[in-house]
């Protein structure tokens, strides 16, 4: 027994020693924390292997598990940092803690591509000390492009539209009327109860429920507050106690008591929510597209007649909607190199390699001739067989591997110098042509070439968006924000689930509780909006 154990130990030692030697000769490893909940990297993918071969860089990734805010708090407290990290809108906390290195000189000396492609945004990225600490996940170096799906909307199941004769949905009442009628006619789908409406309320994702009043008033996604143009100046206003909020929650309350809103909608976690949406039993939900995309992709693959179609729903028809995003980059967050990184030059060189056009085409489009073709005008396109491959989200992620290099890593958006979109499903000439048959049917019925055509073009807002502003950690505004979210968390379910006759009472309590919890935040946001209007 003893001898065997010793032998085994020796064997393990030799193996690790040799593998360490081999990797030291051939590749360089960087550790990186990515604030996105992706499954672990499969180890080898088509895109990943090419990148590894060309750069000699191996990434040791840690993806987010659980709650980002907690993770960030613990990382800063412990001081245990990876070489590089992204932390969404908590990135600046690492800067405040002195844990990020300035990138200005590194980019100047070692990263010509980053310098060139971020040139347009560079001034926005400078912090008070004049340094740049992170590269935003997206850069728009040339022109902007369009997409098939809008950023957000009231989504409705295709079969509801089809049965109602393809109505254009404009108001909240109309939206719920359609759903209600359908539920009455078809109380069961495939033997299971039809679910009229689901709203997502899982921890930090609950904005999918609480953000809605601003959109009903026609605003794009600003976050918790909305800068309203008053006499030529953007003034930060709250909408949580607005009339729109009351109408919205009252409507949900009415629908809840009628059994249209799913009974357990407020206790669902995100996985359960996606599972419900992709079951084909759900008729409607409000959300930002990226939060329902997973379900939509599953439906497109397995159950294309039950896909969700977005509409820009507003309170009533007197309101003009500008719900789409003004193209922007998230200037207050991005990928950073930490003080723990032993080879910042190597790291920035790797990022420089990642961001250049050739690599971007590789991670988004794939290998020429294999994953996409080029026509005689220089435009990229995919054949039917290639398209079919890319419609399978599992294949794209686990075999192709592109998402592991553009999710949470700096990437390019918009169109390149040859008129190709960096993202295949935004390729200008192909948005309609590459759509699924089921999507085409809807587009044809409405006479549009993309679902974004249901929406108005956004109006310019130079500061856009408000939500990328972070309130200082631990400040009164920050405490107020947490308290406000507590109130929202406690009261929104109460308002929706109370008996109809009690709604008024619960609403009044809610207004009383939340009204005192917004002033400090408004002050901080107003200051930052003013600053952006002046300096951007």
């Amino acid at each position, binding site marked *: 027994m003893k001898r065997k154990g010793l032998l085994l130990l020796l064997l393990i030692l030799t193996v690790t020693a040799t593998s360490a030697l081999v990797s030291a000769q051939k590749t360089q490893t960087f550790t990186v924390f990515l604030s996105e909940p992706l499954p672990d990297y499969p180890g080898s993918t088509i895109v990943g292997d090419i990148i590894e071969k060309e750069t000699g860089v191996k990434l040791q990734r840690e993806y987010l598990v659980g709650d980002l805010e907690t993770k960030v708090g613990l990382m*800063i407290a412990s001081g245990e940092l990876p070489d590089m990290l992204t932390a969404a809108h908590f990135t600046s906390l690492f800067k405040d803690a*002195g844990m990020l290195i300035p990138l200005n000189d590194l980019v100047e000396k070692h990263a010509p591509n980053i310098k060139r492609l971020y040139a347009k945004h560079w001034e926005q990225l400078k912090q008070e000390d004049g340094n740049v600490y992170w590269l935003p996940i997206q850069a728009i170096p040339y022109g902007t492009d369009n997409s098939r799906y809008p950023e957000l909307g009231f989504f409705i199941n295709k079969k509801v539209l089809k049965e109602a004769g393809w109505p254009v949905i404009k108001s909240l009442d109309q939206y719920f009327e359609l759903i209600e009628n359908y539920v009455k006619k078809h109380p069961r789908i495939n033997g299971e109860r039809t679910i009229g409406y689901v709203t997502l309320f899982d921890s930090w994702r609950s904005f999918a429920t609480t953000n809605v009043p601003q959109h009903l008033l026609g605003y794009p996604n600003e976050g918790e507050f909305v800068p309203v143009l008053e006499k030529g100046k953007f003034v930060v206003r709250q909408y949580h106690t607005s009339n729109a909020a009351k109408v919205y929650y009252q409507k949900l309350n009415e629908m809840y008591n009628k059994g249209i809103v799913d009974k357990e909608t407020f*206790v669902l976690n995100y996985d359960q929510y996606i599972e419900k949406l992709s079951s084909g039993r759900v008729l409607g939900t409000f959300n930002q597209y990226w939060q329902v995309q997973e379900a939509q992709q599953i439906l497109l693959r397995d159950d294309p007649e039950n896909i969700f179609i977005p509409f820009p729903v507003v309170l009533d028809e007197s309101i003009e909607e500008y719900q789409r995003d003004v193209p922007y980059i998230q200037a207050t967050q991005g990928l950073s190199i930490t003080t723990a990184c032993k080879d910042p030059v190597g790291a920035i060189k790797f990022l420089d390699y990642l961001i250049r056009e050739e690599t971007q085409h590789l991670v988004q489009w794939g290998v020429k001739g294999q994953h996409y073709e080029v026509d005689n005008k220089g435009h990229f396109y995919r054949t039917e067989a290639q398209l079919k491959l890319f419609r399978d989200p599992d294949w794209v992620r686990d075999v192709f591997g592109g998402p592991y290099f553009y999710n949470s890593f700096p990437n390019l958006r918009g169109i390149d110098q040859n008129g190709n979109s960096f993202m295949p499903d935004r390729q200008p000439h192909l948005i309609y042509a590459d759509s699924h048959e089921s999507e085409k049917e809807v587009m044809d019925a409405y006479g549009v070439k993309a679902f974004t055509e249901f929406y108005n073009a956004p109006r310019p807002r130079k500061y856009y968006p408000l939500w990328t502003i972070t309130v200082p950690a631990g400040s009164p505004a*920050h405490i107020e924000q947490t308290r406000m979210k507590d109130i929202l*968390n*406690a009261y929104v379910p109460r308002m929706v689930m109370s008996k109809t006759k009690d709604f008024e009472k619960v609403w009044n309590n809610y207004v009383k509780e939340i009204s005192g919890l917004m002033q400090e935040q408004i002050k901080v946001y107003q200051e930052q909006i003013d600053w952006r209007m002046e300096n951007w």
Partner: protein
Amino acid sequence: MKTTPVTYELLTENITIQKKPFWQTLKKQKVLLFMSVPFVVHVIIFKYIPIWGWVLAFQNYWPQKGIFDQVWVGFDNFKWLFRDPVFYQVLRNTLAMSIIQLVFGMVSSILLALIINEVRLLFFKKTAQTISYLPHFISWVVAANLVRDALSTDGGIVNEVLMRLHIIKEPIMFLGIPQLFWWIIGASHVWKEVGWGAIIYLAAIASVDPNLYEAATIDGAGRLRRIWHVTLPSIQPIIIILLVMNMGYLLSSGFEQQYLLQNGRVIDYARVFTIYELDYGIKMMRYSFATAVGIFRSVVSLVLVFGANYLAKLLGQERLL
């Protein structure tokens, strides 16, 4: 002044009297002592040295700066804590859920141990025991999803069964009723830990002198009487000691379970100290505040343990210290 030399003499006398047996016992038990050294070192390193970090509670700690360059704020963090209305809610929830778990957890474990002990068929006994403690090894992340699914209004087993039995007409959204949350936590705790908790009592029961049972049988005691007069009194010391030990965990118990089962609707009843420290401390980078809450918990826990221990002493029961 005149009395001083006398006391001095008395003291030295005392010491010399005590010294001999002490060194003798030390020599006698040197192997035992040697064996305990690693544990003492472990406790010092991981339990005593970190107490040094308590100074954070009196500062406005910011990670960038060294521990001596921080701004000292005195008792500000504690003042903030005691003025926060959420704090009292949290205190209530923590105590309520801990006590529910403690009481029902112990009672059910003891009952299960007694029942399993009375089973004659060895195969059945072993199987029942294994099945009952299996849930202990599932992490709460998985277990919480099981509980969620079981309590779902959309085909969850609990609602289905109740409806089939015509006890309720409409499915009940158990996880959405604030007043029920404590009991769901209690019940799921019992489900997960009952078998595991029973092991220690079973061990205690196994060490009961069989002669006692024989004597009781001869005296005409039935099964229940034997349990009541022999088994229970024999494991009473273990019960008391476990109770005293668990008192120390009253304020620190619960995190994953509440964190994973909570939702906005029940937050007022679900937030316990650990979650409070996270939400209002670590997540906001208010490390000092989180430390202050931690100190409060430690001090109260200490009082509770000593209180329970003292009570046990008063009642003439087995004690921990």
